[in-house]
């Protein structure tokens, strides 16, 4: 009987959530992926929004069982775009999203199995020409084609952003936990399979996929008498080191600096 956040205004906002099949970290059993289910939770809590779930992959029994986990949250249907093994799903998702034209696409930051590179949302944003926000923790409001959102930063900090829609946002693991998945709606919900041609990713097919092993990490011992310093050191996410801080510059100058950096880093190849 938990009251849901339900006063967020967003008239007729259509949200697509890209959901993957999860893999339990200990037993490897299929189920909801944690970040993806948080994305579904965020979408469901937006009042007045219409939520549709999208999965592209092999329509195996395991996959369907995992998808039922999302249906159990109270979702009526999931569209399952049939793809063969090693398919690159960027193209087919781009096509689907172009035709359904949602205002907002949510996804987890990274899949729990398979390639798990976390690149898909970026590739989609690029091919759709939409903006992308990473680390989404909550959507505060949606008005006039603009969403006000909170983005997670290291050490519990939050940044409020305004994003022009349509946009793609990846959901951080600190977003609100997904509600319990219930058996009844999971069983009743529909998984609608849609056949689409697969675009096989040859490189991916040549990969050998192994279980990840946790590597031992050298701890940085901070000898400080202040608990705050020790905590900061323990909780710090590794920073990039260099870089430069630009302040009081015009948008043009800022964009140029970013563009230059991306070229230097070989992210943009012209």
């Amino acid at each position, binding site marked *: 009987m938990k009251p849901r956040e339900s006063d967020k205004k967003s008239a007729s906002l259509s949200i697509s959530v890209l959901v993957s099949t999860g893999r339990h970290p*200990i037993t490897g059993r299929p189920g909801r992926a944690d970040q993806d289910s948080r994305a579904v939770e965020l979408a469901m809590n937006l009042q007045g929004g219409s939520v549709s779930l999208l999965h592209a992959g092999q329509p195996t029994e395991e996959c369907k069982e995992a998808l039922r986990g999302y249906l159990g949250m109270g979702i009526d249907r999931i569209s399952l775009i049939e793809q063969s093994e090693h398919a690159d799903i960027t193209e087919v998702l781009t096509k689907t999203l172009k035709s359904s034209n949602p205002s907002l696409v949510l996804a987890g930051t990274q899949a729990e199995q398979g390639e798990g590179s976390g690149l898909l949302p970026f590739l989609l944003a690029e091919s759709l020409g939409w903006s992308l926000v990473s680390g989404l923790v909550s959507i505060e409001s949606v008005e006039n084609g603009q969403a006000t959102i909170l983005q997670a930063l290291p050490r519990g900090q939050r940044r409020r952003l305004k994003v022009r829609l349509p946009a793609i946002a990846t959901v951080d693991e600190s977003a609100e936990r997904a509600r*319990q998945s*219930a*058996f*009844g*709606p999971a069983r009743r919900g529909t998984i609608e399979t849609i056949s689409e041609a697969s675009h096989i990713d040859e490189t991916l097919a040549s990969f050998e996929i192994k279980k990840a092993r946790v590597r031992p990490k050298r701890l940085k011992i901070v000898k400080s008498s202040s608990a705050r310093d020790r905590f900061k050191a323990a909780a710090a996410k590794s920073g990039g080191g260099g870089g430069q801080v630009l302040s009081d510059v015009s948008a043009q100058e800022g964009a140029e600096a970013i563009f230059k950096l991306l070229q230097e880093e070989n992210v943009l190849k012209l």
Partner: protein
Amino acid sequence: MLDILMPLLLAAALVLAVVGAFRRIAMWRRGRPSPVNIMKGLTSIPKRYLVDLHHVVERDKYIAHTHVATAGGFVASMVLAIIVHGFDLASGILGWLLLLFTAIMFVGSVLVYRRRINPPARLSKGPFQRLPKSLIAFSVGMFLTTLPAVGLMPENAGSWVFALVLVVLVAWGVSELVFGMTWGGPMKHAFAGALHLGFHRRQERFGGGRSTGLKPLNLDDESSPLGVIKPEEFTWNQRLGFDACVQCGRCEAVCPAFAAGQPLNPKKLIQDMVASMTTGTDANYAGSNYPGQTGTHEVGPGGVLVAREGKALVDADTLWSCTTCRACVEECPMMIEHVDAVVDIRRHLTLEHGETPGKGADVLNNLIATDNPGGFSPNSRMNWATDLELPMLKDRDHAEVLLWLGDGVFDMRNQRTLRALIKVLRAGNVDFAVLGNDERDSGDLARRLGDEATFQSLAKRNIATLAKHSFDCIVTCDPHSFHVLKNEYGDFGGHYEVYHHSGYLNLLIDSGRVSLNKADVGTVTYHDPCYLGRYNGEYDAPRSVLKALGLEVNEMARSGYRSRCCGGGGGAPVVDVPGKQRIPDMRMEDIRETGAEIVAVGCPQCTAMLEGVVEPRPDVKDIAELVADALSDTPAPRSHADNKEPVEVVA
């Protein structure tokens, strides 16, 4: 005048009663079907009333005698009155008998009246306060009316005023006692109660039997409802059962959650179910409320018992407070099944809405993903016992005993109990083996939390695993696993001979397979686990093990079938509904009252709950630990090479 009015009065009352009866039956039948044998049911009523029901009523001697006098007197008087006054056959002994029975009934009524002068808090007031007066009115009225019929008073004695007074008295009496029975007055309990005895959903309970396993949901049929949220979703005989409640409050008096100030009162819960079938509001209820609750409650929109937002007849917290200890069921003279109703509604909340409160969702997710409630790796089940070199059943063709370890393997406290038990089994040369990492949670917790789907999945997989092996019996130190394996796996094809470790230890001691020294541990009391005692009727074995240890048990006031729950059952610690005090603290108070230095237990849950009470307090020891400590050193002959004792290594 009387000889015209009386037959009319009686006939009218009977006709109204029959009409009421049909309406009431139609109301019950609005529930879901539950097949019963009508003839067998009806004919079984008298015996069940005299034996099974009276067995429970008898626990309160005062009310037992009162009830016999009043109910017996009334039934006999009514039958005789129909003959004497209805058909005017006062001749001979009949009239005198009628006088006798109305007199007996009068005595009973006065006793009822006395009980009602300063009634204990558990009794409901309201119309029940009126009942003794109605009983007196009937018995007095009928007595006086009969006097002329046997010639003790002249016909037409007294004025017409006197006759009118008699008519009014008898009319008052029959309206309460005859058609009041089928139109919803306090005497409804007699009508519904009698039929409930015949058409009870758990027929096995009668004639000394026991039926405590939850009824499975049919998950294969997608149209069959997942639990209950509307009153019509109970089976018709469950509805009949609710209607039989006489509001005696015996259940309320024993409910640990009620005593702890959690928002649960089993009597009010049953009355709310009655309200949901009739008026839809609890405004007329005149007993104690759910602790902490005030105001009136109504059936929610769409006829739901529990609202997901806002309020309806029952709050979800009420249902989640129940520890499923069955104390209420054990005490209920009307044989009502409170726990079934609680779990039915929990099933709906969990399976349809995913609203298991507290840590419920986490625990269920863990059970689904890792087969244990703590979310530990299933491959680490045996980590605690690496040094014990336990024989694995999968390496063996057959074992005498399959030792079911339970989820206690992940709990350091329970590991001590398990070690003690294994020490004793080895001392007795018992040929035992374990399932190791192939064992899963029994499903008890999931089922009590309403997640029937997860329970069935665990149960079916465990049954499949067990089917691959050969063993004579299962022994476990967890009464919850014991109950589920013994009583609830049968519905899915798993039938085993299961022992609680206290029962098995008792066998070992009796047959001389282990010999014990006297335990020198001071004074001892014993706490009956609900799932061993009330669920399975095992009260003697643990006590006789303690006796074999030379220990005399200082019994608590509430022991045996009246044992008070430790607060650990039914997922109550997982959902953790707040109250005024904690149930284990109350139980520890019971233990302290006996002056015992040690409380012997036989359940990992009870151990955890009771050890959670702050010190200083009596020590909590599992029966297995007490036995292991008292094993005598005379080495028993070894028969199995693979029951290796750890060899001492001299470096």
